[in-house]
């Protein structure tokens, strides 16, 4: 019972942490959207790539803790795309970034059970 009660406390704590973290997650997403725009207009450089890579890595690492496993995977795919030696495919990147926005925006309260995206 004690462990079960404590797990409920963890869930409640996670909700609070997520409420504080959601704006940061959206900010990280905005960084990726900014990089996508730069990619489209040919204004990318190493510094921008590094910042985008860091944002994708952070999102990939943290979103899954809140139960946003699909969003975490999506951010991981973006990170992998940015790690490639060749320039990222704009169409693929745009699809992933759009999907990531939907997944984050639709999650008001975290859950360890599921996340979904109707695309």
């Amino acid at each position, binding site marked *: *019972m*004690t*462990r079960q009660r*404590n*797990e409920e*406390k*963890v869930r409640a*704590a*996670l909700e609070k*942490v997520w409420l504080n*973290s959601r704006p*940061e997650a959206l900010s990280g997403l905005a960084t990726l959207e900014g990089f996508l725009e730069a990619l489209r207009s040919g204004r990318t450089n190493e510094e921008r790539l590094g910042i985008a890579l860091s944002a994708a*890595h*952070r999102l*990939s*690492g*943290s*979103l*899954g*803790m*809140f139960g946003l*496993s699909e969003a*975490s995977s999506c951010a*991981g795919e973006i*990170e992998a795309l940015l790690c490639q030696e060749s320039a990222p495919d704009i169409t693929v990147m745009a699809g992933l970034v759009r999907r990531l926005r939907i997944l984050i925006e639709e999650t008001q309260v975290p859950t*360890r059970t599921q996340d979904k995206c109707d695309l």
Partner: protein
Amino acid sequence: MPRSLLVIDDDRDIRQVAKTSLELVGGFHVIVADSGQRGLTLAHEARPDAIILDLMMPDLDGRKTLAQLKRTPETASIPVIMLTAKVQADRQELVGQGAAGVLVKPFDPMQLPDQVCQILGWVPSGKDEDRSDAAEK
């Protein structure tokens, strides 16, 4: 007296969630550090029973921090679990460098304490309580 853990990660969310999970679910005493440098200081001062160390951090990253911990006699025997997203590529190398094991990010906060115990060969706290609860029913 609960076992103590030091969590070193530059990501505030990960520190917060790991601390909450390890304390409430695992019953550990947890201290946190937001950088490799701060982690080294705390490891030396607090001598935790184990350390959970993020691999990718600015400045002093996880590899350099691990190397420093293992080089220092006072902290060399403290088991260090590395936290990384690139587990397949890193596990062998990190264990070769002295890590006790590797945890994959993102982790499930409900499973984290058990994973830590499994790597370190510790009996998870609360398991005995669970058994007592079952026996009472």
